[in-house]
């Protein structure tokens, strides 16, 4: 076990080295830059270390998945990027600013685990919510709503209420809402976790197409290995107690990814390495 995990780390550094020049070509400035990042929650049972010594650099246009067992801090890390949690150690910048500045400038769209649509607003009005808050004019609101509804394949459902839509459609609506104000960074926290396999496959495929078309940077939290491997250009494997990064894998899969790429040897090789990384994380306990 130990020798194999050591081998993985050896491979990881080699992979990183090989991945870097390609990244530099995709985007010169990094979107998220974390150095020695740590977060300790003070609870009534004493301090809980949610994140420890996280070093990570996410380049422009990357699709980065965070994978790990529950409690490994992947959601917490996403929330730190979004300025929904405050780190207690280390430093982090988003677009070269503090997370708070980035949030104030509406640098990112956030998709939560649940759709979090407001039930008293129609889908259209839900998508309009961030636009209203950001003071965008009515005509442009309509234009953007129409555009993002088409992007997530929900054309014609604009004046339905959330409860009239299926779970998958609701989650797509929440993605449309995050896309509506055109932030370059999309933070997605297990957006498809509650959906069944078939719907999930379909949404993964759509998300990938969307990413190709919009050239956004996406940070995607998941605990599904196939999902992470299928979607990502970079996979960050994390382990719990305290949450830290155990492996960073740059995907060698081509940008064009039909669903059946998941049966290719290349895909299985990466999936295997992710699984080994997850196992190695567990052996620390």
């Amino acid at each position, binding site marked *: 076990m130990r020798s194999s995990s050591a081998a993985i780390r050896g491979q990881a550094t080699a992979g990183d080295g090989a991945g870097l020049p390609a990244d530099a070509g995709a985007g010169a400035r990094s979107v998220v830059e974390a150095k020695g990042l740590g977060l300790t929650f003070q609870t009534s049972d004493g301090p809980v270390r949610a994140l420890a010594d996280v070093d990570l650099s996410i380049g422009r246009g990357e699709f980065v998945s965070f994978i790990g067992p529950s409690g490994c801090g992947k959601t917490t890390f996403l929330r730190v990027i979004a300025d*929904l949690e405050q780190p207690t150690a280390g430093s982090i910048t988003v677009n070269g600013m503090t997370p708070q500045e980035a949030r*104030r400038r509406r640098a990112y769209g956030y998709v*939560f685990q649940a759709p979090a649509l*407001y*039930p008293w607003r129609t889908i259209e009005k839900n998508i309009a919510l961030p636009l209203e*808050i950001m003071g965008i004019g009515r005509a442009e609101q309509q234009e953007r709503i129409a555009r993002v509804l088409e992007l997530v394949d929900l054309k014609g459902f604009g004046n339905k209420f959330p*409860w009239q839509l299926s779970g998958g459609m609701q989650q797509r609506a929440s993605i449309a809402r995050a896309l509506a104000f055109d932030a370059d960074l999309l933070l997605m926290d297990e957006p498809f976790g509650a959906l069944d396999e078939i719907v999930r496959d379909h949404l993964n495929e759509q998300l990938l197409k969307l990413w190709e078309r919009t050239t956004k940077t996406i940070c995607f939290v998941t605990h599904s290995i196939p999902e992470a491997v299928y979607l990502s250009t970079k996979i960050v494997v994390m382990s719990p107690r305290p949450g830290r990064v155990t492996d960073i894998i740059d995907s060698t899969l081509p940008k064009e990814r039909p669903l059946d790429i998941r049966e290719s040897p290349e895909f299985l090789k990466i999936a295997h390495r992710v699984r080994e990384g997850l196992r190695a994380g567990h052996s620390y306990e």
Partner: protein
Amino acid sequence: MVAVDPVANLPTARPTLGARLVGGKTVPILTVVVALVALWYAFAVYLNAPWQLDRYAKAEREWTAAELVRDTLNQERPVLPSPHQVVAEIWKTTVDVRPTSKRSLVYHGWVTLSSTLLGFAIGTVLGILLAVGIVHNRAMDKSVMPWVIASQTIPILAIAPMIIVVLNAIGLSGILPKALISTYLSFFPVVVGMVKGLRSPEAIQLDLMRTYSAGAGQVFWKLRWPSALPYLFTSMKVAVAISLVGAIVGELPTGAVAGLGARLLAGSYYGQTVQIWAALFAAAAIAAVLVMAVGFAHGLVLKRMGMAR
């Protein structure tokens, strides 16, 4: 398979009136009403009999059971008036007299209703404002709620005359002192309901607002207020009913000038039990209409918000 067809057709056929009466709520409700009226008549005979027997004994006259029942149900000042006496009294004081007359139940009902509505309106606004303060201000959260609860532990019957007297002393009279007693009762459920309602948005819905870096006003109007509306209407249903109680209680110490409370007081002064019961039923009817009106508004708002399914 063919034999099943006629049976399969049955549910689509419109049920007959008889079937709907038996299958629906009408028959059970009517049964309960009839049973209650029968019980009422039985108690009226039982409770009014001693006085009637006393009368017979003093007059030294013979009596039959039929005579006893007839007489107990038609006394002038019965212990418990019979239903038909109350109905007759209500008819007499609503239909037979002009609504502006002081003997009209409509007149007294309107007096009470107007101060109920004023008190309810003030109470609702006050309740909402206090709830907004409690939810947004930590100091108010810690300090106001205990006082709000304490205010409701004082019996309204004890504090109502004080309010009337004090307000009269500073020159306030007429509808406002009574309305303020309604307010005193009705703001409470609104505060409690609205605090819960304004805090009802889920963490994820609040986080969403934070990711948009929305201001406090935007969070309130776009999230907290719409989330709280269902709670507001539920509270208002309770509030409007106790507003009526407050208005009636507020009329008792005014010297019984006008209003259903005055009617009740005058009735008890002169032993007019029929008049008391008629006023009670009028109050109950007003309360029912008010609660239904709030319920109707509730339904309308939910429908507009797309939450009625």
